[in-house]
């Protein structure tokens, strides 16, 4: 049965690639003359071109949101949401899922060759912001013939992109789904990111970001960064429920090897992440999180003013046990939208799974998304 995919899966998918020429001016002041984006699509663009949905990924995500690259492999990271008959139904919608600029899954990033030096960019890759990503995604939409997204959807850092889309391109987004996100990071959140970055940058194998030239990777630092992140993505309750104080050997060993099951779990998560993810990309992504603030350039840093020009309908979703992007942060977005007289709905989903909930099949959460997508009007193709 390894060749058969579940009937509600988009099945076998292969990434596509687009090259973009012409200067891309970044928030940092740097310019990229040329870059490439890798992305996947699911479903078909209709004749009216009004059924396209953009998926924005979070810190450690990539373009592989749904389906399988090979039979038997794990499906994409948001496969429980996207597929025929799933809440984001690919029989109705054309879904586009890019890997962000600066990523390490195929789009131009620190692992790519810098044309100026013919060497790998490494630490010389420019800082990228959420606004920069939205610019590149808009260019991708142009090449795909998508004038206006039916919806832009994302969780966490992805939700920030959905929000930025609605601000930067009000006439190109009909619905913005901002899930488990925030209008800007809290001090505590930046602090977590700084510890993660410090873990990476103080790894003996980091070599100022030029570790590729030394044939090594700062795996230990990346592992620590991920271990820390992982703790903050889950709730106290769910860690307690899943691991408790279980001992791997059934007894205390009075040593620093793994004793508690949670230690084993975190080490495993950290190690497998360090094998698949690039440290320079991790540094860039956390900086992008820290910098995000759509109200930074409006008078009095007033989010209401930043959102006043948005014309999308918003769905804002938070999760009760999420303390990394707490419901209170989502409510700030909602209040700004209410004050700015925008169309918005808000749901706080009861879940014990913390920030990770946005990736999980929490029943009410998925019913909310399914219903929201179902009532989204699109032009039906003649059969």
């Amino acid at each position, binding site marked *: 049965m390894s060749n058969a995919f579940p009937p509600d899966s988009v099945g076998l998918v292969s990434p596509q690639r687009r090259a973009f020429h012409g200067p891309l001016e970044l928030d940092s002041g740097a310019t990229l003359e040329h870059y490439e984006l890798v992305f996947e699509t699911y479903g078909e663009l209709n004749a009216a071109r009004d059924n396209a949905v953009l998926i924005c990924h979070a810190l450690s995500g990539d373009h592989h949101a749904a389906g399988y690259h090979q039979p038997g492999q794990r499906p994409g990271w948001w496969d429980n949401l996207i597929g025929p008959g799933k809440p984001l139904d690919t029989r109705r919608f054309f879904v586009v899922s890019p890997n962000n600029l600066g990523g390490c899954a195929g789009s131009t990033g620190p692992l790519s060759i810098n044309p100026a030096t013919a060497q790998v960019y490494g630490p010389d890759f420019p800082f990228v912001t959420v606004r920069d990503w939205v610019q590149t995604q808009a260019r991708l939409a142009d090449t795909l013939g998508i004038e206006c997204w039916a919806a832009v959807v994302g969780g966490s850092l992805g939700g920030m992109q959905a929000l930025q889309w609605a601000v930067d391109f009000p006439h190109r987004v009909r619905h913005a789904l901002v899930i488990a996100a925030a209008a800007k990071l809290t001090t505590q959140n930046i602090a977590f990111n700084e510890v993660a970055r410090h873990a990476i940058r103080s790894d003996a194998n980091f070599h100022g970001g030029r570790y590729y030239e030394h044939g090594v990777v700062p795996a230990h630092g990346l592992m620590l960064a991920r271990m820390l992140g992982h703790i903050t993505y889950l709730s106290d309750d769910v860690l307690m429920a899943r691991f408790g104080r279980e001992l791997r050997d059934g007894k205390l060993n009075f040593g620093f090897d793994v004793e508690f099951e949670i230690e084993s779990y975190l080490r495993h998560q950290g190690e497998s992440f360090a094998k698949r993810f690039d440290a320079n990309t991790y540094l860039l992504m956390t900086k992008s999180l820290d910098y995000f603030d759509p109200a930074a350039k409006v008078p009095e840093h007033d989010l209401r003013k930043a959102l006043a020009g948005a014309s999308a309908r918003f769905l804002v979703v938070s999760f009760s046990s999420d303390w990394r992007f707490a419901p209170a942060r989502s409510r700030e977005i909602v209040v700004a939208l*209410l*004050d700015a007289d925008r169309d*918005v*709905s*808000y*749901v*706080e989903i009861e879940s014990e799974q913390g920030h990770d909930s946005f990736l999980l099949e929490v029943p009410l959460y998925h019913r*909310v998304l399914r219903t929201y997508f179902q*009532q989204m009007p699109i032009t039906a193709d003649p059969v």
Partner: protein
Amino acid sequence: MTMREEQTLIARWIRNGSRVLDLGCGDGALLAHLQTARRVSGYGIEIDGENIVRCLEAGVNVIQSDLDRGLSDFDDDSFDYVIMTQTLQATRYPDRLLREMLRVGREAIVTFPNFGHWKCRLQVLAGRMPVTRHLPSTWYDTSNIHMCTVRDFEALCASEGLEILEREALDSAHRTTAAMRLLPNLLAEIALYRFRRR
């Protein structure tokens, strides 16, 4: 059910194109009705997840929130009408909520079951808490923690300095009669009010 008639009555009080906040909006039917019948814009507030799904189905903006936390998310005078149907008696601080309604809205519309109706009075006289078609729950599992009568409500309005603009007295089929208008506290099962700050 008769909700449709209550909606029709409320719609009659609402000016075209106004901005409306519906507290405890349930499945969003009233807002959906007002959107079509009166081209209103606005939001519903609802606490229950299942009801929120219904609201999204109905295509109305809905904000999940607990009314007992007040309306601090909303600016002063940001709505033409703040509506609350069959919810006042289930809130923790009805008096505060009425003040909040008229802080964020220019006018308020409230409906509630009248505890002064003769059937309720008879049951209380017989020594029992009333259970009627309109108040079907027993005392220990009711969410109605602040029941009031027509006269109670009007007394509160007077002490809060609220001006009652319109009143409707209805039976459980949402009909009204001349007698009901004359003796609303005895004959009305449901009371509807439109009021504002004096």
